């Protein structure tokens, strides 16, 4: 089990190829039978007639890393996971780009799938991260998770 604290934040979007590389790295972990992956992608929502072109993410980093460690500990306690990886963007992520990457692996599919879903829900609800939806005219709107 891999539980060491890690920095989950990366500057700018999560490249699609980075996801592919992360999957490839697990081919040596031959006790894994199932991977579950969640990706958050920035949508071109229209708010009061203005189209979102990007989200600027900021965080309270010291609190976020403590919160993420608590989430990680709780998920590893609850599910039989082989490993978990989480990456969240900071700074600007344009429409169509990936801002969140949650990756859980397990011997069996149920643990991987449920752990991934629960981790995503907890990140959305508990991680001190703020997204500023930037419109094409550079005005903005602070996003709020539902």
């Amino acid at each position: 089990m891999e539980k060491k604290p890690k920095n989950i934040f990366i500057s700018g979007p999560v490249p699609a190829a980075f996801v592919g590389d992360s999957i490839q790295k697990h081919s040596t972990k031959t006790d894994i039978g199932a991977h579950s992956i969640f990706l958050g992608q920035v949508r071109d929502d229209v708010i009061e007639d203005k189209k979102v072109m990007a989200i600027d993410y900021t965080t309270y980093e010291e609190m976020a890393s403590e919160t993420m460690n608590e989430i990680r500990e709780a998920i590893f306690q609850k599910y039989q996971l082989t490993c978990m990886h989480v990456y969240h963007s900071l700074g600007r992520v344009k429409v169509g780009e990936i801002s969140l990457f949650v990756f859980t692996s397990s011997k069996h599919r149920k643990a991987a799938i449920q752990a991934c879903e629960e981790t995503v829900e907890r990140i959305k609800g508990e991680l001190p991260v703020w997204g500023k939806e930037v419109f094409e005219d550079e005005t903005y709107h602070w996003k709020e998770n539902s």
Partner: protein
Amino acid sequence: MPLTVSLFGQLSDITGSNIIEVENVIDTNSLINNIKERFPLIKDNKFAVAVDKKIIRENTLLTEQSLVALLPPFSGG
């Protein structure tokens, strides 16, 4: 007792800064009142208060070493 308070998201738009100094506060209630007087627009915003990187639900005593942050609703992911 001067205390440094961190603000995030739309709250820092109101204060014009990510950090403000607050004097003469002994607990989180007096801190919030002080900030609301200086920045009345803050009253229109929902926010949580974190002390030492934990969200607090009740009035909490503060020391000079307390890490205080005001957190608007999260929107990560």
